[in-house]
């Protein structure tokens, strides 16, 4: 093998591409060829230098910057479709400080039963006879898909309504849960839509009904959809 070919082996050795037997063969050649030994020493020296280059880290969090940019672009997209997600800003800056205002439609149920705090209120119509195992959000209205499944923000960004574990959850800007419904049992397609700053509409496709949840009063109305 010519010295030019041995040089290729030297390069491969630097990159850990030689098998142990190949390494032995190379070392034997280097011990007997001063020209290749010299070349190997220089290349190894260079390789060491490259391995010791500083591995810089950003001086500020690029992730935070990127999240802000995502939020900004999401907001501008959302505002054109009537949705704002100002909650995201607070969320990203403060992390998760959860507070909760769970609202809505099951408040009373929780009083009658030992269910979690968010059952139907006494005067409100009964929930659909079927319970739901999943909700489908209005993804088409949501910008930047990856966050769309996280929930739908209220128009002023104060609340975010989302579905998790077959429940509807409403959080405030800091991520605190304000309301969590008991889990639904039967599958139905559900669409969430904010009617105004503090009224959430939930449409159940299988029963063709709509629930409106007024957050400040914690009242819920049920009516057939058109």
């Amino acid at each position, binding site marked *: 093998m010519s010295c030019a070919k041995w040089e290729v082996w030297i390069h491969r050795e630097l990159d850990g*591409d030689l098998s142990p037997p190949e390494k032995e063969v190379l070392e034997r050649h280097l011990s007997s060829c001063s020209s290749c030994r010299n070349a190997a020493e220089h290349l190894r*020296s260079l390789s060491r230098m490259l391995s010791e*280059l500083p591995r*810089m880290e950003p001086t500020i*969090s*690029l992730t935070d910057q*990127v*999240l802000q940019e995502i939020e900004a672009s999401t907001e501008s997209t959302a505002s054109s479709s009537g949705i704002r997600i100002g909650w995201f800003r607070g969320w990203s800056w403060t992390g998760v400080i959860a507070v909760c205002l769970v609202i809505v439609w099951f408040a009373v149920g929780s009083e009658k039963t030992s269910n979690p705090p968010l059952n139907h209120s006494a005067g409100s119509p009964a929930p659909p006879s079927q319970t739901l195992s999943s909700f489908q959000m209005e993804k088409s209205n949501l910008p930047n898909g990856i*966050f769309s499944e996280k929930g739908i923000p209220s128009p002023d960004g104060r609340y975010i309504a989302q579905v998790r574990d077959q429940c509807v959850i409403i959080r405030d800007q800091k991520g605190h849960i304000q309301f969590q419904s008991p889990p639904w049992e039967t599958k139905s397609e559900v669409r969430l839509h904010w009617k105004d700053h503090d009224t959430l509409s939930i449409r159940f496709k299988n029963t063709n009904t709509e629930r409106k949840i007024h957050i400040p009063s914690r009242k819920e109305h049920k009516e057939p959809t058109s």
Partner: protein
Amino acid sequence: MVQGEWVQLAQKGDREALVHLLRELEGPVYRTACYMMGNQHDAMDVAQEALLRIYRNLPGFRYEARVETWAQRIAVRTAIDYLRKRKRTVPLKEEVDADRCRLGNSVERTGISFDVQEAIHRLPEPQRTAVILRYLHDFTYEEIAETMEIPLNTVKSHLFRARKKLQSWLADYQEGGVLP
């Protein structure tokens, strides 16, 4: 949890997973940007744009490549886009001046490291990329090939040629006894 699981969760809309993933990737992405661009100012812009692209492309990530190589591919492409754009828009003299605004702090900007960084920046794009992936990320030939989407032999060729060039440019250090 391995990175792939974070990706899966992030793809499903888990914001915490997305933030975790971006934080894991920002260092390596920034490092590539630094050595591709040759100065920290551009590197910040490039790394930020690359992370945005990673976020935007996340739903389409299908695990054909490893997360690290996929992210590095985006970082390299973003840097190349910036370099080409800069070539079109920045007069030559300013471009050279900008390049002299080296990487790192005052310590990093002195001595051997500074000259090696200068030399790396002089390499043609593909060779520079191969060197960065090999020495700043410890990628194997296979991982470099996956990142650059080129055959394995081409990776070797880029690395061998790059080392030969660097060796001749940095000969003073090697022959003058500067190196240990």
